[in-house]
């Protein structure tokens, strides 16, 4: 008891550096407020519209219809086809970009003459705007008559492939993969470079073969970066739009209509505000499922 009384007063905790003088809240608030508005206002409007029959072409016919839009959209086969297309598109491009990206990252991590320039060339496609990429591929490479691919295959006596008619979704997958492979390469290469070289040397000393080295040293080191790439790409791939817009316009039929394009068709071509809002909310839910994983993975790496 007495010991407590006689214990010397702890020196008062040194004041957190002049933080009292800095209005930290006021500095953070503007960013937070605009982002809250950006999130809440459109989402609230989408929810509000989703429960109404509301077409911009016949605005007078506007009324509250409960779950009508959701029932209509969810029983629309086109929605399910477009969700299927979205999943195929996302999964294929993820597989291609991460698979090849990992291999290329290992390749570009080696020293070879002109390595810097080669790397710059390899990552360039990522900086090309989607509409330009899509048109290069559509006109100059995949065009069935004058495209380079057709000219080459015809030159070899193989005939030409009409890419966007016969393999529309594959064509889109190729274009998007070309745009995003450099992204995976860039991120994974950076991650590989942070690998401790002494670790590799040690493994090599122990007689590890290159493949074993890759499998048991490099790949585990990359796993986090791969997860991050996969999730960031997924977020972008769920919303692929420009590439489809300028090449196939969602067709032929519904072959390349993904969820984003489906909602666009409902919204800006049919002017069906209610239906498009309901579809939009479905997209939000889908994206959020992915987002939860991404935020968790980033959070575990954050030290404040």
């Amino acid at each position, binding site marked *: 008891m007495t010991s407590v009384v006689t214990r010397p007063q702890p020196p008062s905790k040194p004041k957190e550096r002049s933080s009292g003088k*800095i209005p*930290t809240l006021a*500095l*953070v608030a503007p*960013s*937070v407020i605009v*982002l809250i508005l950006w*999130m809440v206002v459109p*989402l609230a*409007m*989408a929810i509000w*519209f989703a429960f109404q029959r509301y077409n911009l072409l016949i605005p007078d016919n506007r009324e509250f219809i409960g779950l009508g839009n959701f029932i209509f959209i969810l029983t629309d086969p086109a929605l399910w086809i477009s969700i299927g297309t979205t999943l195929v598109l996302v999964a294929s491009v993820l597989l291609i970009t991460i698979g090849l990206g990992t291999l*290329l990252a290992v*390749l570009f991590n080696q020293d*070879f*003459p*002109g390595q810097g*320039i*080669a*790397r710059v*060339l*390899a*990552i360039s*496609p*990522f900086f090309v*705007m989607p*509409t*330009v990429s899509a048109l*290069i591929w*559509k*006109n*100059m*490479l995949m065009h069935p008559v004058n495209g*380079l691919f057709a000219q080459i295959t015809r*030159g070899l006596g193989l005939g030409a492939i009409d890419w966007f008619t016969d393999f529309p979704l594959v064509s889109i997958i190729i274009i998007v993969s*070309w745009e995003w492979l450099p*992204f995976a390469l860039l*991120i994974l290469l*950076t991650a590989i470079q942070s690998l401790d070289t002494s670790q590799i040397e040690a493994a090599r000393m122990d007689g590890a073969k290159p493949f074993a080295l890759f499998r048991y040293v490099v790949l585990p080191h990359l796993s986090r970066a791969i997860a*991050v790439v996969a999730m960031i790409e997924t*977020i972008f791939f769920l919303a692929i739009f*420009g590439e489809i817009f*300028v090449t196939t316009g969602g067709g032929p039929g519904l072959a390349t209509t993904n969820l*984003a394009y489906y*909602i*666009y068709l409902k*919204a*800006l071509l049919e002017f069906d505000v209610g239906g*498009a*809002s309901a*579809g*939009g*909310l479905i997209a*939000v839910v889908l*994206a959020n499922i992915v*987002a939860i994983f991404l*935020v968790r993975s980033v959070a575990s*790496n*954050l030290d*404040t």
Partner: protein
Amino acid sequence: MKTNNKKSNQWLIGLLGWLVACILFFPIFWMFITSFKTEAMAVATPPQLFFKPTLENYVAVQERAAYFNFAWNSVIISVGATILALLLAVPAAYAMSFFPSKRTKSTLLWMLSTKMLPSVGVLVPIYILGRETGLLDTRIGLIIIYTLINLPIVVWMIYSFFKEVPKEILEADRMDGASTYQEVAYVLLPLALPGIASTALLSIILSWNEAFWSLNLTTFDAAPLTAFIASFSSPQGLFWAKLSAASTMAIAPILIFGWISQKQLVRGLTFGAVK
């Protein structure tokens, strides 16, 4: 023997590396080449690699006064959105990295989560808001949207750069009696300038290439280059050489920005998860 083996291995790796690089870069190279052909040469069979280059496409594109309208829109919108995002983000990042509170981590993560909101989900409300406020097809409208889209990335990136500024330097400065303003203006900002610059570059790159809102919210007045290039898709016309010239001009500045800042971009693109 062994060194010889190693050397030939290195040659193989070099060959493979360059092969991959050339394949990936080829479409851009082909577009660049095509931009110096006449329209007839551009669609010629067999495709021509050696030809007498012409600048007529560049002249033709420049002569269409509208081209500058689109290019100028791209510049104004991406630079405008970047400045606005920096003005909002730098103070926030400063407060959060130097005076972290209990809420800092969750605030940062929440900001990141706003990035997950898919654009299509709010296409209709934004379109209607734009129509009601008269911001549809205006540069201001796109500037506001791009600022909001990029703000989380910009905050995160600057936050991570501020985090790397050694606290001792600021400490020493304060001992010398520097005011907060002096400390920020003369010590912190100069130290963090390279980081802020690469953040700005990333924001410009992302805004310049954005092709969802620009295609959906603009028709002509505020249409940036993404929308202008997209307009080449509708007539299956044989304007490939002109399209190539216009595309080359549209991507050149961003390609160069990307090359300059590739290393720092990784951090922004992964929200600091990979450095």
